């Protein structure tokens, strides 16, 4: 490895106990991330994307596996050490309004982040608030507004400014654009990209919008029922998808055809994601997979791949390689 990894996640699992049953939210996920890189997390609702994002930040405790951030195992940190470490890892939420305190003005919400981390003096904090507002494209008067007085896009800018106020190295973006209008989505994405370039941020970008993930990510991980079905560089994954599920996902991207020849029917995936309480035997995707055969129902495919960077958990892809 040329330079040090910012974040290394090894075999992380997260299960919830719900009324005596075990919900397998995230199963055995591993990845690594460098500064300035973006990892895209893709999957449908209930596939464990958000849970994984929160487990990485130790907002949820992992049941198994290790998260090493800046060379330190997060699960070994004491509560107060973890609090200090949080300065370097932040999160942006899907619903910015719900994540902001309705009784705090925008300015004090951003300032509070710095107060919590004990950064800077009072005067410096005020200056930094103005700096941040300007940087995320909000007028300075917005500091005196309450969150509900702003539009959705502006609220998300506040969320971004608050996350950035403590100068993090890693930001988990938990579907930051899915609650916004399309025109605003583009603005926010461009803002996130610019900030990444300027500040060398590492992103974990959670989304079910594949187009956005392709646009933003260096590497992409496709989750299904909490398990990684395919991971690789964005380019490999989008141009040469190996897993049937990834292919279905890619086919589901809506494009405006430029000619009638390009017009094709939409391929839909039959059924719904199975219950995470009782994951199917073998490959988690086999009940919905059009290519599944007996082996898929009994044996769980291992994550391996054509190259060391492009991995797939599928028996078909595996046989294709060995031949």
């Amino acid at each position, binding site marked *: 490895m040329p330079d040090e990894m910012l974040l290394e996640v090894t075999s992380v699992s997260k299960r919830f106990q719900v009324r005596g049953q075990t919900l397998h939210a995230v199963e055995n996920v591993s990845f690594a991330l460098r500064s300035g890189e973006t990892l895209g997390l893709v999957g449908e609702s209930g596939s464990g994307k958000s849970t994984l994002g*929160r487990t990485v*930040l130790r*907002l949820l405790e992992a049941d198994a596996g290790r998260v090493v951030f800046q060379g330190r195992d997060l699960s070994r940190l004491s509560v107060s050490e*973890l*609090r*200090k*470490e*949080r*300065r370097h890892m*932040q*999160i942006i*939420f899907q*619903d910015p309004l*719900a*994540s*902001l*305190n*309705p*009784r*705090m*003005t925008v300015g004090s919400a951003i300032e*509070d*982040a710095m107060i*919590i*981390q004990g950064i800077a003096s009072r005067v410096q904090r005020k200056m930094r608030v103005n700096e941040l507002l300007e940087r995320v494209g*909000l*007028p300075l*008067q*917005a500091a*005196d*507004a*309450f969150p*509900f*007085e*702003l*539009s959705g896009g*502006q609220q998300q800018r506040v*969320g971004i400014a*608050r996350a950035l106020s*403590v100068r993090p190295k890693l930001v988990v973006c938990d579907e930051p654009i899915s609650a916004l209008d399309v025109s605003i989505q583009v603005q926010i994405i461009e803002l996130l990209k610019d900030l990444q370039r300027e500040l060398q941020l590492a992103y974990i970008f959670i989304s079910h919008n594949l187009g956005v993930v392709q646009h933003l990510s260096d590497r992409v991980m496709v989750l299904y029922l909490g398990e990684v079905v395919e991971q690789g560089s964005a380019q490999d994954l989008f141009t040469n998808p190996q897993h049937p599920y990834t292919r279905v996902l890619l086919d589901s991207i809506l494009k405006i055809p430029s000619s009638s020849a390009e017009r094709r029917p939409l391929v839909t995936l039959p059924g719904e994601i199975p219950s995470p309480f009782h994951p199917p035997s073998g490959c988690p995707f086999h009940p919905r997979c059009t290519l599944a055969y007996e082996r898929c129902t009994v044996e769980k495919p291992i994550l391996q791949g054509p190259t060391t960077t492009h991995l797939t958990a599928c028996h078909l892809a595996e046989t294709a390689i060995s031949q």
Partner: protein
Amino acid sequence: MAIARIAVNGVAPARRRSQLAMAWGRYKKDRLAVVGLAWVILFLVIGIIGPWIAPYNYATTNFLTANQGPTWQHIMGTDNLGHDMFSEILWSVQNALEVALGATLISFIVGVALGLWAGLKGGWADMVVMRLVDFMFAFPTFFMDLILVTKFGRGMGPILFAIGITGWAGYARLIRSLVLGMRNGEMVEAARALGATQPHIMRKYLFPNVMNNMIVALAFGIPGDLTVMAGLSVVGMGLRPPLPSFGNMIAAAGSNMLGYPWLMYFPAGIFALTLLAFLFVADGLQEALNPKGGF
């Protein structure tokens, strides 16, 4: 109003007024609430200075002037023992305020403490507190008040305590549900992600968001306790005469209604207006304290 705020350039204008000033601005628009507040303030002032401005002592009996209608000497008439009704009412206001405020405060403190504990701790603590709340709601609390008053006497202290200790369940349930709703919400998660400590989250995120609801609950609670206190008098278990109270006066007037109706008009009328005033104030507060209410 909210639309007007999201101004042309899409951002609210610079704020020159505090949240409190804006709340007052919203409150002022509700006429009934303003009138109610004036009455409540008058009630409070009389509660403090009433005994000094009362022309007669509440215990002074004068059989020569018993059962008089309103005259210049006794502007609200006299009862069957010759007590001056106006003075009685002035004293009653003080007693009513002491009991109502004291009892509400007791319920409130117990309720908030238990509700916060249940909401934040969850698990068995929540379970125990909520079953207690269920019990308090299912049990006829007025009956409990009667038992407590019978046991501990009909003085100011025991009545205050009895009403207070039976009225906490509503507050506990309110606070608990508010805290529970926020505890697992994204706002608290965001604060945790920033590295905030539990006390910091309580102080700057949870407390400001439950405070308004608590003020409104208090404003609704005071007239409730006033009613319970009067109710105790009506069944003969209220403040022991000659201590004057609205309940006593109304109960005594009932039997004399046909002969001396002013004995009913004045205390019952003032008492009813007071209850209404408190309710209007509570209603107004509910509107005014909603930060999303515009200017």
